[in-house]
């Protein structure tokens, strides 16, 4: 009986990795290659079915659930992106970022005091200096949105200048928004040129490309835009600004991470993924992590390859973790505000 168990790459697909990768080089980008996405079909109904059953196929309970929620905290980009942001508001957010769950919960989970932080703090460019100051010594990176967030319709040179300014203020990560017009009109070369320029402007700062998938609407366009952003050098691809009427959904995420997998199969690059906007509950944190683990493997549960763009979700996670530790359901009034 011939039995083959080891799997080799044959076509364009990447076999999900199971072991953790300690390091991976940044994505240098490549020339536009439309063959990598033109003719690629995404079936909406099948994508939705996969997502609907995926989270019912896997269940994490008890200490495993607690661990998975702790892991979600590690991956949160704790975010404030509002017109009424102030230095004080940002300072409060950063305090929560340093101590995302209360010390007694941390202790109850057997975690080293102060070791657990969120993945990053994400703010508007003018708030970067306040965040950098508030996070001094914490090793928590500051992420800044840029490029005329959220619509991205400023002149290109101003958008690039905004990136450079935010980086100069100390932002280690830049969340750019793509020009939706270029995607919707199929001007892939134009989109590639713009994002490449943004990547250059980022310098050493990592670049997350926000696709604003709620405005791209079709999954085929989402796949194509994901591929162009990665070809242009994005370190992360991100679903949404949080300002669209439809933000992160599992089906859109599935399409994006399959694009990310396909890009990796061709280039060998490991690209990160960040769903953002609309996620409020701890069980959503589990759902997205299950999605990442099932489709991409263990590596994509680390903050260097996976982030949640969320703020209120952290509060629900903290309550669930307190329940795990104490056996009682906690009220949010007992936890520190973000």
């Amino acid at each position, binding site marked *: *009986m*011939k*039995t*083959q*168990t080891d*799997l080799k*790459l*044959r*076509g*364009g*697909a*990447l*076999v*999900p990795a199971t072991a*953790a990768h300690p390091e991976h080089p940044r994505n240098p980008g490549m020339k536009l290659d439309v063959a990598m996405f033109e*003719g690629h*079909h*995404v*079936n*909406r*109904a*099948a*994508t*939705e*079915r*996969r997502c609907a*059953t995926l989270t*019912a*196929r*896997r*269940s*994490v*309970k*008890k*200490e*495993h659930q*607690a*661990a*998975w929620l*702790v*892991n979600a905290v590690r991956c949160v980009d704790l975010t404030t992106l509002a017109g009424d942001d102030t230095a004080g508001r940002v300072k409060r957010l950063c305090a929560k970022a340093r101590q995302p769950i209360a010390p007694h919960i941390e202790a109850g*989970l*057997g*975690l080293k005091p102060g070791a657990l932080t969120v993945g990053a703090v994400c703010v508007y460019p003018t708030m970067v200096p306040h965040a950098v100051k508030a996070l001094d010594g914490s090793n928590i990176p500051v992420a800044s949105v840029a490029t005329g967030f959220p619509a991205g319709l400023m002149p290109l040179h101003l958008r690039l200048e905004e990136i450079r300014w935010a980086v100069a203020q100390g932002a280690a990560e830049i969340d750019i928004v793509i020009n939706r017009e270029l995607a919707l009109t199929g001007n892939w070369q134009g989109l590639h040129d713009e994002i490449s320029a943004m990547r250059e402007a980022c310098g050493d700062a990592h670049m997350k490309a926000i696709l604003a998938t709620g405005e791209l*609407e*079709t*999954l085929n366009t989402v796949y194509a835009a994901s591929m162009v952003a990665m070809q242009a050098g994005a370190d992360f691809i991100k679903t949404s600004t949080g300002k669209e009427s439809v933000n992160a959904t599992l089906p859109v995420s599935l399409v994006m991470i*399959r694009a990310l997998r396909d890009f990796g199969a061709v280039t060998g690059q490991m690209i990160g993924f960040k769903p953002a906007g609309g996620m409020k509950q701890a069980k959503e944190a589990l759902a997205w*992590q299950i999605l990442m*683990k*099932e489709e991409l493997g*263990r590596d994509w*549960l680390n903050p260097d390859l996976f982030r949640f763009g969320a703020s209120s979700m952290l509060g629900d996670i903290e309550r669930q973790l307190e329940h795990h530790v104490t056996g009682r359901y906690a009220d949010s009034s007992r936890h520190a505000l973000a």
Partner: protein
Amino acid sequence: MSIQTILETMEYGVAPEDDSHARAWLDAHKDGFGHYINGEMTKPGALFETRDPASDTVLAQVSQGTQGDVDAAVAAARKAQPDWAKLSGHQRAKHLYALARHIQQHSRLLAVLETLDSGKPIRESRDIDIPLVARHFYHHAGWAEILEDEMPGHVAHGVCGQIIPWNFPLLMLAWKIAPALAAGNTVVLKPAEYTPLTALAFAEIAIECGIPKGVINIVTGDGETGAAIVGHEGIDKLAFTGSTEVGRILRERTAGSGKALTLELGGKSPFIVFGDADLDAAVEGVVDAIWFNQGQVCCAGSRILVAESVAGQFETLLRARMKTLRTGDPMDKSTDVGAIVHPVQLSRIRDLVEQGASDGATLHQASAPQGCYFPPTLVTDVEPASILSTEEIFGPVVTLTTFRTPSDAVALANNTRYGLAASIWSENVNLCLDIGAQVKAGIIWINCTNIFDAGAGFGGYRESGFGREGGREGMRAYLRNPAAATGKGKGSTPEPLATGPADTIKSGEIDRTAKLYIGGKQARPDSGYSYQVKGSKAVVGLAGLGNRKDIRNAVEAASKTKGWGKATGHNRAQVLYYIGENLSARAGEFTERLESLGGNRKAAQAEVETAITRCFWYAAQADKFDGAVHSTKSEFVTLAMNEPIGVLGLVAPSAQPLLGAISLVLPAIAMGNSVVLVPSQAHPLAATDLYQVFDTSDLPGGVVNIVTGPRDELAKTLAAHDGVDAIWYFGDHSGCKMVETQSAGNLKQSWTEADDARDWAGRGGQGRLFLERATQVKNIWVPYGV
């Protein structure tokens, strides 16, 4: 395990479903289960064990149903049936509604029991099986309510015997009991011996709901108990879901018994992936197709056919996906593939796979624990002749074969004895619908697979059985229309044939020879003999003595007429109108012919006139007897299409030789079938006169073929012919039995009746029933979304 450790591995851990409530219920029955007969649980009889295949432990002791138990159950059902049928639709609906509600209220108990007893993952029993069970009862509560309005004139068969398999124990019970009860039947049901527990829990739920006693009877046991039901004289209709092998035995055993029969049998369904498909979606489709319920699914997509252009990429993706499948404890919420139902089934799967591998196939297997488990298996390097390509494995084993072109894909897809389901993957809707039309299967899933709903019909073509479950077409299987068939009838047995020369035959000036009609041409009988056709006084002519070779030639001619089935209803209507027109032009000639055969002039005229009317009626129906769009799941269009069956053998009644023949031929060809007609043995000349009408009416050659001769001998050849897809026989009782017995060979649909059981000149000789018999419903599921 510490949180810190889990953070390193990010394993899922275990997530066992709590089985304490189900165990408590089993504990309460630790002395053994009886049957559910006449509204109560009987005392346990001779007991046998039912086991949990995952842990190899005994769950409960259940009773082996005896002939006496079956007798008691049938008697209870018989006694209860008239009152049950007499209830208003609304009252029956209330009972079915109560069952649906109580199933939901006990849903987790039922799900856990199902998983314990069958080994299927709790996710499936919880999220798929039990919700579908409740949906089925709700749907059919609705049918009970509106039946009188929707299907006027139809009545229940009476007592239904129902035998169900172990792969979806409670769901198959629901598929059987819900429509039967809605229609006003009462039932005697036997669950599979491996998985009786949910049926017994259902019996308690029926008691809790106050279902009138005797309406539902459940007898547990093995094949012997099943045989007692099959052979029971008190049963009016049998419904069976299970293997083709057992289905064939059932067909033979019930032959000539007059029992209505529907069979849901095996499959070897193709799963066709085109180059422009969403390959990731198709890979996930394979998971849903063959690694659902351990592949123990009759409609499982077990033969992947993939376009050569994407085969490498598809296989890589599929094998990567296999690595994340979790095979193991069915009670763990994170299990994808559970235990095989029974060690016997496991060894069957192993034997088949080993045989396939020793013939050169390559196996790619995921991991599986020790015990009653079989690893998810992909088989490559497999040829169409391999046992793994032809046999229904009923396990988590799928073959992968490549094709070059769409027509190549269709040829491979249809290269099977079965015809239950097919799954087609492409983003091109034109391609999907084209292939969907060409694949011979009762269910077509486009860009999806294993999607079920009570509102759509489920059932197969070919050796996958006949009859539909679910939807309007499923309800029809539990009803009959007594107005159409006037009584049982005695049936006529023709006199022996005389082949020697007769006395002087009176005729016109030039002698006319009635030949056979095959492939649009007149043909002399292979035998070289003719037989005498007697009128009221003397021999009026000679007819060809057809034999099995003539039938063979006629079937071959009929099977070559591919275009007729694809012609529009309008085009077929034009031909039928034209037949009516030409028949009318020759009305005098036909009247004389009928008169010469012994009828009086008035009767002969009426027969011809009715035949002409019938041409118009079926011409009118040709473009109107269309399908439906079922209301099923959101974002699905579910098309129920009436498709021709293929080649029909038609054995016409003896009396009214013109009208009898035309009453069978017209509905068959109106729906796009081609036919081999065996006209009245005694009076075939009225039918052979028809071929000149056909020749002048633009009817393509081969659509109607006529073979005259010894009725039952020719009928036997037709019934035993694997190239004949259905047979209608109107003759005598021994002929009915013979035809049904012979039909078991390829499990062709058969419609047999005493030829004097209906009024051929009246409503009994024409109607929707004939059109339903001339078609089979193909349900095509088309999901949508941008």
